């Protein structure tokens, strides 16, 4: 697990509509990334 203070690795992945999302484009905002096992599973 990455530790606090570590630069968040940049990435580009598609959202649910296939639109690419790049983490570095969200600079200036707080961002929460939350992994879940797969769609339609709790959490």
């Amino acid at each position, binding site marked *: 697990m990455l530790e606090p203070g570590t630069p968040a690795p940049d990435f580009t992945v598609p959202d649910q509509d296939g639109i690419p999302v790049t983490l570095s484009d969200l600079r200036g905002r707080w961002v929460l990334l*939350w992994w879940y096992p797969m769609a339609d599973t709790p959490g």
Partner: protein
Amino acid sequence: MTRPPTTREWTARSSGSASTRPKANKAFREKFDFPFRLLSDYDEQVGVAYETRDPGTEKVSFANRLSYLIDPEGNIAKSYKVSEIPAHPAEVLADLYELREQR
């Protein structure tokens, strides 16, 4: 004192991520009317970078339940092993409020 963000405001800026394809994520999002985006990490490269699977394991169908709060400068502010799913949003909001107050 800065007002803490509401859950709605916060979730509008957050994202889930799974090894699921976009089409399945779209149905999942619509089913529960999530206000945040669901990202598809179907080749698991983001999961590898964020250590959401155990080191040395092959491609997995189920990522570990981890979350990361990332600050406006692009650094990890908080790392979580999510065990209490219903309580996790409130936990993150409390941390966010505290972190914002420290700035």
